[in-house]
């Protein structure tokens, strides 16, 4: 049965009347055209669809829309529109983090989530921070290096 679900999407109040059991992933992609949210595995394993739900990193392929009612959702589109997000994007571009690109929006969300909590992560902390995001192209090294670059370029910004 359809229900009206209201939530905050990338800072904006939105609402939609639909089946609340639809996957949040589908609603973000199909109804709100957040195409940066990628579907890689549909089982919460690859992290390509990662978003922030009330500030926590989640995989919306496992979350019914109803769970977002009254909550706050931030996607890669929302993150990359901020100064912090742009620092990550530029560091990924300069650091060679990007190949086929399909896992990358999820990686950007993971990097943002990590740096927002830990502005100066060690190599091991970065590897742990992106361990829920699978990449088949890069072998991860240049993604890790790019996150280090984003940490140093951002400096105090990450502490705000």
């Amino acid at each position, binding site marked *: 049965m359809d229900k009206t679900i209201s939530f905050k999407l990338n800072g904006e109040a939105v609402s939609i009347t639909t089946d609340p059991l639809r996957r949040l992933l589908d609603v973000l992609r199909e109804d709100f055209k957040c195409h940066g949210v*990628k579907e890689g595995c549909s089982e919460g394993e690859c992290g390509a669809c990662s978003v922030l739900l009330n500030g926590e990193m989640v995989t919306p392929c496992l979350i019914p829309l109803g769970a977002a009612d009254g909550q706050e959702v931030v996607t890669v589109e929302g993150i990359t529109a901020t100064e912090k997000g742009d620092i990550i994007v530029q560091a990924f571009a300069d650091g060679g983090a990007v190949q*086929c*690109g*399909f896992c990358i929006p999820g990686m950007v969300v993971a990097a943002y989530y990590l740096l927002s909590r830990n502005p100066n992560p060690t190599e091991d902390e970065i590897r742990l921070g992106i361990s829920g995001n699978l990449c088949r192209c890069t072998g991860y090294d240049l993604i890790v290096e790019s996150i280090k670059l984003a940490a140093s370029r951002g400096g105090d910004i990450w502490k705000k």
Partner: protein
Amino acid sequence: MVTEDISKAIRRIDAVSKSKGTIKYLSDYDLDDYLWGRLVRSSIPRGIIKKINLPDLPEGYFFVSAKDIPEGGKNYLHMIATDWRCFADGDVKYVGETIGILCGPDKTLLEDLYEEINIEYEEAEPAVSIDEGIACKGGAFINGNNIHCSLKLEVGENVDSVFARADKIIEETIETGFQEHVYLETNAAACKKVGDKYQILASAQCPFYIRKSIAPVLGIKPEDIVVQQTTTGGAFGGKEHFPDVLCGPLLLAAYVTGRGVKMIFDREEDIEFSVKRHPSKVMFKTALDKDGNIMAMDSKVYYNVGAYLASSFVVLQRGCFHVTGCYKFPSFRTEGFGVATNTFPSCAFRGFGAPQTLFAVETHMCHIAEKLGIDPLEYKSRYFIKQGDVTSTNGRVVERVMIPEMLNQVLDASDYKRKSREYKYGSGRGIGISFYNHGGAFTGNGESAIIKAKLRLHKYPDGRVEILCGQTEMGQGFHSIMPKIVSRVLEIPMEKVVFDDPNTDRVPDSGPTAASRSTMIVGYLAEKAANLMKPRYDKEEEFEVETNYEHPEGYPWDQASFQGYAYLGYGWGVCVVEVEVDPCTGEVTTRGIWSSHDCGHLIDELIVHGQTNGGILQGIGWASTEVLENVKGHFKQTSISDYIIPTSMDHPKQGVYYVENAYRWGPSGAKGMGELVFNGSGAAYIDAVSRAIGKRISAIPCPTERVMDYMLHGHDFKEEF
């Protein structure tokens, strides 16, 4: 104008849009007016289709199958061979074989209808493994012997006469398993009639392959189909021929329904019903003299081809050409066999047959050395091939082989010699080393006889230059390095060079994006074209130049006998891996990975670095955790939860090195490298694990439980084979 070395890294042109998620993959296109397509597939590995029971289809829903192929159309896909049927008709030969395509506007309803389809079969006994295929289990279904294809190569004195006077003969079998590509973007394609042509959108490596392959289904010309590649989220060979298997049924569905039809696989569907790397079995017989020197090496190479041949003979050929690895033996013979089984047809996967035989020869060489009590590095060093030496196809190595220089880099970085001395066999610590190569581009005269690549550069009045060729970007960075090559020659900013995803109506056929040929062959055509354009660039407003591939003279090849110069430029590699193995659980921790590669002159050091990291890790995954079993024709692992690829925490940061060895016929001296970097890490990893546990490992993948099994029941290095 002083130009910087072309190796100096640039920003990839697609890096920002991919990071922001604004670039469009096929699933991001607005194709709302297209019907959804769902492949209806065989659920059994072998048998006769007795009856297809369809539910009542509501208006606007269609079931399209072989019977809908119009007069003049043919029920096959033209890959390299033409045996892969577009639709099973009468019988089925593997689980997942396409029987029909169900189409309709509502995806959920389509799924419900799909669940109601019931197909009745008369089941036959399948052959699944290489051994079952050879034994013709259930009766042969190909050529009376289940051998799809075979070849034989011999160098030097006949091995049988050498064996007769050998001091010792070592026989050993090395096996490798299936491997799934796991490109992060699953397969996706769409087809619609636009005007008088069929338009295909596809996540694919080779747009020209698709139109050639599927045109026979409607009995039309390839030119009646326009293929537009869409941003491709990884491929690794898995989108070389396989998109044809989606596009053939989509083409017929578009013809029958008069509508656009689209298909996007979900992950489970993609793992369960797509092509894989060929499992292999290599049986060596090696003759040694009284001092342990190799007098002759004989091998039989078996690849599990699956139900259809498709491109597999070429894969098998490459496998056999690489079975001598980086070595020169006084006498050598190999016989290769492509075995028919009732499994999903195997196809291209990074390395295209070379990784299996390279893994086999590297592992076999280690085991001989260890049996003789010699460090594997020292033993292998005795046989390194050099410039001018005879190859496995009786050609010669044309270029300088820089293995000694590469070896020094890796030995220094890894401290191999000390560790190899100090880590005792079975001590729980181990270090391993491998040597490997990869012949760049199509074999022999394939580039001139079959591919005949063409490239055009178009200059526009505003000074922009467009690169027109069929090469695709699939993550490897090609659409960034080509503008770099062209802009350097023309001395114009890179932003002035345009290179869009190819559309077969707009660009000439420059051959497939495969075989590590794009930079080496098509990049060279671009460099040549830019040189032709340069003197006219300032004088003429708008014009085009075209370049065609020309094979260098003096390097003959005979495709009938597989004799001559198979490859003019090889990439070369050395890899060292260090591990620690938990003596109680068998769990392996990788302590270090170091590699050095010769890919000619690097076009972009950062792109090459990224390719190296990814290839090395994919190779270690293949050798370690990536278990893909086939039980009675069904793949047992069908999701990323149970098919385990490496994560960011599984292996440490790699030490990556290169040597400079400019290639005569490559752009700025570059050679192919995309496959090379996959070819050797698995063998180095297994050498390390095997030394750590003090047991011979002769089959991969080797995940924790199999390491444990080897620890408990494996053979010591000193035992007889």
